[in-house]
């Protein structure tokens, strides 16, 4: 029997960090189920769901990874989802629609704060977020994937966000995930299997 943990690793981004991490996991009998990795400036970060043998002590897992990745000054956190507080444990009640939202324009403080509050009002989850500032002209481009409850009017939401950010010169687009897929994949639209 295996036990699932959620783990994050923050380390210096140098060649070999992923190899070291994969070695450590292999030695612990771990198996990655879901993973997302990002590199921001000089740092490497990864969050993953991984299964380990049930008799594997969590402290041993953390210590071993930390030891193997010591040359990269790795910080490791491990959480057990089965005993975490703050989750209601219920599955998502209905399938949600996925959208890609992009914002671009002059960098202003408070854009993300406003956006996150506005999305939360409609029960919209922000499931992926990427952004970058360009220092030469103080502009930014941010893209995020939203998980939107059924019945939400995407057209209206997009128009509202456009109006909100228009005065600051920030442009907004919101496209359904299926449109993004249709533009990115050359398969015929009616038979597109790229996105479920």
């Amino acid at each position, binding site marked *: 029997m295996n036990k699932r943990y959620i783990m994050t690793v923050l380390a210096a981004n140098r060649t070999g960090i992923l190899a070291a991490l994969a070695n450590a996991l292999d030695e612990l009998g771990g198996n990655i189920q879901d993973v997302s990795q990002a590199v921001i400036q000089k740092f490497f970060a990864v969050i993953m769901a991984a299964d380990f043998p049930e008799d594997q002590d969590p402290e041993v897992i953390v210590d071993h990874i930390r030891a193997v990745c010591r040359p990269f000054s790795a910080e490791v956190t491990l959480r057990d989802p089965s005993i975490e507080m703050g989750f209601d444990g219920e599955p998502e009640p209905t399938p949600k629609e996925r959208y890609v939202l992009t914002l671009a*324009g002059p960098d202003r403080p408070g854009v993300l704060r406003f956006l996150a509050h506005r999305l939360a009002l409609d029960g919209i989850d922000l499931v992926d977020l990427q952004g970058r500032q360009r220092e030469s002209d103080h502009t930014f481009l941010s*893209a995020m994937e939203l998980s939107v409850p059924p019945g*939400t009017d*995407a057209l209206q939401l997009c128009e509202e966000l456009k109006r909100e950010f228009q005065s600051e010169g920030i442009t907004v*687009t919101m496209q359904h995930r299926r*449109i993004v897929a*249709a533009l990115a994949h050359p398969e*015929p*639209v009616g038979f597109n299997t790229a996105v479920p």
Partner: protein
Amino acid sequence: MVHKSGFFSALQHLRQVPLDVRTVTLGINIADCTDRSFHKLCDGIYHRIVDKAGRMNAICSEVASLMGVPILQRRLCVTPIDRVAQGFNASDFVNIAKTLDGAAANVHADRIGGYAADVQHGMTNSARQLIASLPEALVQTDRVRAAVHVGSTENGVNMEAISLVAETLLKSAQASSHRNGDAAAKLAVLANDSTGHPHLTGACLGDGWGDLVVHVGIGAAAIIRHALEQRLVENPRSKLDELASVIQTAVFQATRTAELVGREIAERLGAEFGSIDVTLAPTHRPDDSVVDILPLLGIERVGAPGTATALTMILSAVRAGSAFASCSASAYSRIMLSVLEDTSLAVATQSGTLTFDQLCMAANAGTNGLDLVCLPGDTDVSTLAAIISDQVSFAVLNRRPATVRVVIVPGKQAGDAVSYTGMKGNTVILPVRGAGLSERFIQRGGRLPPIR
């Protein structure tokens, strides 16, 4: 702001595409509604339309909201009425037009096509009655768009039908003289429409389609303009082939989006998905015209030498982009220079940079024909018939469909300004050179033989 690297570059490209769907057209088969009883015929047509299209408006709104893609117009088209209503007189046909109008209003459709007759060989009695009903029918209805198919490459051109339609256009204009002859704008003369091209103005549900079919149309001008502007910021010295590839890519994206939206609507309506029309058609939004693309390519004013070359390049790229995007893309993408519906084009005619002769000759550079052009109120029937037959001839010679919509504005002279509340259009009356000099040619009547 231009981000040139990987993921962000891709996202930025998505960001700049102003995707929308210009038209959703639901084709409804009403051929089996035919009945000897006039009341049963009208009742059958009305209930068929309301039954099949009752949810169209709501579904279009749902899908627009879901996909985040605006849908600008919702249209209907039905089986040609001259086939459905046999044995009735002109006043009965007026009531059928009112029935179509009422049904379209009930389901909140913007337009309904199919009030149409095919007279390319000759004229059945019902086609003759339908044409006779047009002045009254078009004045008394709001949403109905009529069409008369007068010729094709394979079958030649019915010149007598063209004369009759020209006469009908004049009567329609006179009957709506209090509204500057706007009824004439609802009547299209079609050529090479043997299979019922669903995207032509006033077109019907043609042969070969199923009982219920959803077609979508894209107004490609805005998306092309955005894409070109972006490329020219990055490289102001872009060569024409580079700009053509930019147009192809933009049209590819617009076509894919329209197909996704159209298929979703079709599925929810229980209809087949038909075709995608990628036409450079105007909307009333500012800068949303093919005329606004020309300056980006280097033609400072529409009508200047080089305009035809630029239009040909755009059309070629549009066809290439849409053909790669979808097997359902229509093979007859074209450019619509609809003066009354195109703010930029109307300005060009008002300033005198675009003349009637240039609009006529643009048909040879892939335009749709002569569309929504206003002519002086004293234009005689033979001149009008000759203008129509010229456009029809271009179409049959070039083996492509064409539409002619000409508005004769009663009481107005060349150079007078005219405005239409319903179409939200302002333009000037264009002078016709050589008016009255084709009378004997038109009066000969008969047919133009097929093009060999």
